[in-house]
């Protein structure tokens, strides 16, 4: 193996926060990833051997294989975020909308959204609905300040993402779209830190995960990897009356065993745990009762791909205030770098 040796920066010295802030505050609902893709493309400039955009818009950065023993390893983190799309603008200028991905009415009320053209809107609710029940999305509307359809700065078919600035609370970061921009940040940081790998590493910033892991389906077909890892957020069981699961914020990178869409290849679970202990990186096992990631789609592409997932524990997923712990984020970076630097024998 002929490799350039560059010493790695210890993770605690890396300040990922400016990158995270840039990514989470950007616009990019599913199917509308142009802006976030351009931001990521400029962040990874010069790092990979080549960068391409495939037919559905996935951003693919490849580190070519450096050793014969290396494998084709795909890493996937999705660029898209949940959002809304305008379905009608009424005679007074209020916009009706349909969800893009798993949007819940309760987390919408009083929320702010932003469109591709930077127009900001406020989500209001029909006050005269049946006030005993939970509102449905049909009870909600977007107010952009327009007084008629003709003066509306948005039109039917325009998509919006939620709009919130990033907040830092101790070790924790709170923002919209931590799902899955935090993993995009992790992947970019891995690209920066990964100086020696025997593998062909295919870093894929996927599109349309939130509406059915669609970008992963086609990019995995195109790349035909031998092993794949998705990087995504996972729910935690550490909040009052939270879901029954072991994952907790601050306990390290989560190694997925299964979720409701896929079962990780057990060999990859073992491998990740081994690499975590070698690198003295804190990790925890994840068994997620509901939800899934890009790995679900990649696993069953072509003749099948052994797949696993490294998750970032995240509270309040799909709300405008998703919370992660920086220690888990750094652990995920170290775990992935450690894994990619070493052989992957299955």
């Amino acid at each position: 193996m002929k490799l350039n040796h560059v010493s790695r920066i210890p993770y605690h010295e890396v300040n990922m926060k400016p990158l995270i802030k840039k990514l989470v505050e950007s616009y990019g609902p599913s199917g509308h990833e142009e802006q976030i893709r351009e931001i990521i493309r400029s962040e990874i400039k010069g790092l990979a051997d080549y960068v391409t955009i495939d037919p559905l818009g996935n951003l693919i950065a490849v580190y070519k294989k450096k050793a014969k023993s290396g494998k084709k390893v795909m890493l996937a983190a999705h660029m898209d975020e949940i959002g809304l799309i305008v379905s009608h603008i009424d005679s007074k200028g209020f916009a009706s909308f349909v969800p893009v991905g798993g949007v819940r009415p309760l987390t919408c009320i009083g929320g702010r959204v932003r469109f591709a053209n930077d127009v900001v809107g406020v989500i209001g609710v029909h006050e005269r609905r049946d006030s005993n029940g939970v509102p449905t999305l049909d009870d909600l509307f977007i107010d952009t300040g327009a007084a008629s359809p003709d003066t509306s700065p948005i039109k039917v078919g325009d998509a919006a993402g939620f709009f919130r600035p990033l907040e830092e609370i101790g070790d924790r970061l709170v923002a919209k779209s931590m799902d899955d921009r935090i993993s995009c940040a992790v992947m970019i940081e891995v690209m920066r830190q990964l100086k020696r790998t025997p593998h062909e590493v295919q870093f894929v910033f996927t599109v349309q995960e939130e509406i059915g892991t669609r970008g992963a389906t086609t990019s995995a077909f195109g790349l035909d990897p031998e092993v794949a890892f998705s990087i995504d957020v996972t729910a935690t069981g550490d909040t009052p009356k939270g879901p029954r699961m072991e994952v907790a914020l601050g306990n390290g990178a989560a190694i997925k065993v299964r979720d409701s869409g896929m079962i990780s290849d057990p060999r990859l679970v073992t491998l990740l745990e081994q690499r975590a202990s070698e690198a003295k990186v804190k990790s925890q096992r994840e068994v997620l009762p509901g939800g899934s990631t890009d790995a679900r789609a990649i696993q069953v592409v072509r003749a099948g791909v052994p797949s696993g997932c490294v998750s970032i524990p995240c509270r309040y997923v799909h709300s405008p205030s998703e919370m992660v712990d920086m220690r888990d984020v750094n652990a995920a970076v170290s775990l992935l770098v450690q894994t990619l630097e070493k052989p992957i024998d299955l």
Partner: protein
Amino acid sequence: MAKKNKTKAKKKTIRPIKVTPPTAAQADSLALLKQLSEAVAVSGDEGAVRKIIREAVTHLADEISVDAMGNLFAIKHAASPRAPRVLVTAHIDEIGFMIVGEGKDGLYSFEAVGGIDDRILLGKPLWVGADKINGVIGFKPIHLVKPNERSTVVKIDALKVDVGANRSVKAGDRATFATPFVDLGFTVRGKALDDRAGCAVLVEILRGKYPVELIAAFTVQEEVGLRGAKVAGYTAEPDAAIVIDCTPANDLPSQDDEVENSHYNTKLGHGPAIYSFDRGTVSDKRLIKHLASTAESKRISYQHRQPGGGGTDAGAIHLTRGGVPSVSVSVPGRYLHSPAALVSKDDFYNTAKLVRAALENWSPKVLKR
């Protein structure tokens, strides 16, 4: 002359409806639509419609083939072998019924194939099997219905098709609503306009000459889960796809005076409907732009379909192989998936006009990021 004016003056209150006479090509297209609408081709058994289309495209395409699932391909080669490959599809199947039980006395139990609302079934005449045996969905007449029964929907499992004394019906036979196609002037009415309207449009598209390798696919089994399109997309391996379908126009006034109808999906007579987002697909923005700008420059009316549920073959095609930039364009239709759908003739003609113009104007710029 004088006499004519006199009669006109008498009927002053009634405004004469002026229907532009169709061109020869439009008349052909309408005749084909009638033939297609009246044919029986429920999902999984599309032979009858495939045969009609095959005849219609024989002299229009360079290559014709049928794949393992029954999709019919008609290919028009481009002059240059490096021309982009554009797949244009329309589905040939229709929603309908399948006979499931051999009943006594000509009464057969049946189930729905594709999405059919139980509330529209009672008393509807059907054509059963390839020979179009006349049947009717039996029900209890109003004389005998109890007051509490009036507010409940009779489920399809509780119903039987009555074919009289006919004994030749077998389990597995398909059935459709028995609706002859009629020309109503501005509109046409018939069964299965979803998506025979799209099929007739696609045949019309094959009459043109384009700078692209045009792969027209008449797909099977759309109504039961985009099954034909999934393999057609894989086979065609195109650079882009345009799906032509028929989408609801729910444009009647809202029943609640206080709110406007905000769930119209599309409006009849407002032109072909371009999709941006449905349950299965986010349309490629470059293709939406190409269609919309073509419509504007050629002064063809068009509308944006409301984003929301529903789906087309694009949902399967765009995920084939390494991904295919896709968009759908639909002919708006009222009362789809019922015995009598209504489609505007102008929308129908304009859909073909729009897609033809978009293909004629195709350049590598269309897919540039």
